[in-house]
């Protein structure tokens, strides 16, 4: 009996590989298993190798598994590219249609199953994925019924006949596989799960749901991988809440439109990836200078330029911190789990309004598109704070003087009045301005307004800017990361501690302003600090050095080939560095 199953389905893009993985995952999720799914795909619609690797177990799963138990192949390329990941007891199920060949050095047995042929007999070869799911069910010793409600949900609107055909395809695949397995039936059965229903979602879902729960009613965005799911979710859901999404002509319009709506008093935002972030820099500067709230989500992908649009990378940090010309206060938040992605998004909107500045919520492709089981979010933890909005009873000023929108207050945060309000008339501008928003180049005023804008950061409220698991007072190693590397680092920490090393872990959730007070003691407690990041130059390591020093002990493990860190590989690289 297995305690963890690693299952991968692969084939040509556009062949239904995604839905095979989706149906299998949904059924397992509904049985109460914890899942972590990661898709390998290309920036094209049809063709090109794609695969979906899903790790399933009855206890919480934090990262992609190192290896593979079952490989389901719809083409030879899938076998050739992936067979090396298979464990000693691994197995390959392949569609007999392409006459699969087992690589010479593969220890895993290959079963050729007539997926396409059986599906065609049932009416359409499109159902080959359901036959493959049936075959998987046989391996795991699952009843076909566990797929019934998933098939109902997905095919129900196409009619009862389609549902039945698909269930029949599963049953046929199951039978066929049982025959092929003979005595080995049950060998890959998975330890039972708790049967509890959990959410199964990608990071983009968590962010989009967070934005909706935060009260956003307007989004302006331009499609881009890997961010588009956020706008697509809101396009579906906002009408119910009276709001709207505009797909703009470019990211410049997206960010400036969101600023316009925030100026109007509606929580609004945009979401993009690196190329869009580059275009939004002038808007981010405008938000900072005019003190209009703005939330920008950056789902990092491989850069630079068009880079690796569908691959994992974490290389936008410096751009987020320093991309805008001139100097503005801003906040950069980096969630590392689904739950954080949801609640941090709400916090991003709160902070943007409270401090009246741009907030960038950064994720990465693995977090944005990786699909995981999550406990339902707690409604009672949703907190909305809108800051210093003045709505009524404003006294009429003499001589049509403007409302002091940039009043030099003690905490730097000025009262904010929304257009339309009586006696609240004021002017906002990206030009340096005085307390009333009138352009001013006076030296004294410039200093007052710069100081005022930056003073706001002291009022930043952000709980747990660093997630840490640091049991050792005299650690050999402090592993540091941000965003999606959390699971792999946790896993490696556990393994190395079990092997007798003293390893602490810190995950940076607030990138800017950098939480030096929380990070410095963790650095002090470790002989060596290893920053793990998906980029070439070690951007987070450099930000740490700038803020907490430690140049003599901070080292990096970087990876920039487009794929996420796997625990095994990270474990080996940490060992190499400590040898």
């Amino acid at each position, binding site marked *: 009996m297995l305690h963890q199953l690693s299952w991968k389905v692969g084939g040509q893009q556009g062949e239904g590989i995604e839905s095979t993985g989706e149906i299998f995952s949904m059924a397992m999720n509904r049985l109460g298993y914890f899942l972590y799914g990661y898709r390998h795909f290309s920036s094209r619609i049809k063709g090109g190798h794609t695969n979906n690797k899903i790790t399933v177990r009855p206890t919480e799963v934090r990262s992609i598994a190192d290896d593979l138990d079952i490989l389901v192949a719809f083409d030879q390329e899938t076998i050739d590219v992936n067979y090396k990941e298979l464990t000693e007891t691994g197995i390959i199920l392949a569609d007999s249609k392409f006459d699969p060949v087992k690589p010479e050095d593969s220890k895993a047995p290959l079963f050729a199953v007539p997926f396409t042929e059986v599906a065609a007999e049932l009416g359409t070869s499109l159902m080959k994925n359901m036959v493959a799911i049936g075959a998987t069910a046989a391996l795991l010793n699952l009843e076909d019924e566990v797929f019934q409600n998933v098939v109902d949900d997905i095919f129900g609107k196409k009619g009862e006949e389609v549902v039945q055909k698909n269930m029949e395809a599963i049953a046929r695949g199951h039978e066929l596989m049982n025959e092929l397995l003979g005595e080995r039936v049950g060998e890959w059965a998975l330890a039972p799960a708790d049967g509890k229903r959990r959410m199964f979602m990608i990071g983009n879902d968590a962010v989009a749901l967070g934005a909706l729960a935060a009260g956003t009613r307007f989004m302006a965005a331009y499609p881009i991988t890997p961010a588009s799911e956020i706008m697509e979710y809101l396009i579906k859901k906002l009408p119910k809440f009276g709001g709207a999404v505009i797909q*703009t002509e470019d990211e410049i*319009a997206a960010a400036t439109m969101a600023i*316009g709506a925030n100026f109007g008093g509606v929580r609004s935002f945009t979401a993009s990836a690196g190329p869009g972030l580059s275009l939004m820099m002038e808007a981010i500067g405008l938000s900072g200078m005019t003190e209009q709230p703005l939330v920008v989500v950056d789902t990092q992908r491989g850069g630079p330029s068009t880079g690796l649009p569908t691959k994992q990378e974490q290389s936008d940090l410096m751009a987020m911190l320093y991309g805008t010309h001139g100097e503005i206060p801003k906040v950069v938040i980096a969630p590392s789990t689904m739950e954080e992605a949801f609640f941090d998004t709400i916090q991003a909107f709160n902070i943007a309004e409270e401090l009246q500045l741009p907030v960038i919520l950064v994720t990465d492709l693995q977090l944005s598109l990786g699909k995981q089981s999550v406990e339902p979010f707690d409604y009672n933890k949703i907190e909305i704070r809108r800051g210093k909005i003045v709505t009524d009873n404003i006294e009429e000023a003499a001589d049509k003087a403007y409302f002091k929108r940039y009043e030099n207050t003690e905490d730097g945060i000025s009262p904010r009045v929304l257009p339309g309000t009586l006696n609240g008339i*004021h002017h906002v*501008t*990206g030009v340096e301005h005085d307390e009333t*928003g009138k352009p001013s180049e006076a030296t004294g005023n410039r200093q007052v307004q710069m100081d005022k804008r930056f003073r706001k950061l002291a009022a930043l409220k952000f709980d747990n800017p660093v997630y840490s698991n640091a049991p050792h007072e005299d650690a050999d190693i402090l592993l540091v990361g941000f965003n999606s590397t959390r699971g792999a680092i946790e896993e490696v920490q556990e393994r190395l501690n079990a092997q007798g090393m003293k390893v602490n872990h810190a995950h940076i959730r607030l990138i800017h302003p950098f939480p030096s007070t929380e990070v410095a003691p963790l650095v002090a407690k470790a002989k060596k600090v290893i920053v793990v990041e998906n980029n070439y130059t070690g951007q987070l390591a450099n930000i740490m050095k700038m803020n907490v020093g430690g140049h003599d002990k901070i080292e990096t493990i970087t990876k920039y080939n487009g794929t996420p860190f796997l625990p095994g590989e990270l474990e080996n690289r940490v060992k190499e560095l400590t040898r």
Partner: protein
Amino acid sequence: MATFKDFRNTVKPNWCPGCGDFSVQAAIQRAAANVGIEPNELAVISGIGCSGRISGYINSYGFHGIHGRALPIAQGLKMANRDLNVIASGGDGDGFAIGMGHTIHAIRRNIDVTYVVMDNQIYGLTKGQTSPRSAAGFITKSTPGGAIEPSLKPLEVALTSGATFVAQGFSTDIKELTALIEAGINHKGFSFINVFSPCVTYNKVNTYDWFKENLTKLADIEGYDNSDRGMAMRTVMEHEGLVTGIIYQDTETTSYQEKVPGYSELPLTDIDIKMSENDFNELVKEFM
């Protein structure tokens, strides 16, 4: 009820004496009073350039944005608060060079915003370089041998981009210009108003006298029908764009906001943003 004086503030414009922009400012103030709105019900969103300063010279809510981006800001604001009257304004460089992409898309999107362009065929604030509206051969600091590119034709571009309201005015004729802006504000959709607003400092070709000599009022053209897009196009082309009046209007149009499914009839700013527990649980369930 507010008069045009209520739309004046105490800020002294930094435009050159004789600049056409003074009259455009006055026309906007008069039009706002004429349509019966109060200063706090108006927002003027501007870009960068001499003309971009206009948002600070009108007693209304104002947003002086970034170069070329007045329109996205204005559209976002209108989406947030549909009860607000939103006027976007800027120069020909702002709207037809750096912001041209936004101009075309704002026109085809048809959100209920009025866009007033102060067209002086030159870059003034940067002290005299060519503009997309400068005629071929026009000599400036950046085109000492004369502009090589032909002048951009904003009226034709607007008409072919699906505009539902296209007008053109001349700053000297405040009466006509006021009427055009009023009609633009009353139009249910995006209204595009190009205004010849001469630069007395850097443009010695397209002067007040030059316009007086070359402009034709559409009102003087017998049988002109501004509901006929084809006729509008032909007339504009025949007169090389030198006409004033409402060039085209689709009075039956419905704005973007009226077409968005589910979009609130109340301003979004008036909706309670806290989601109910029931709604939240429904959304969570969809992921299970």
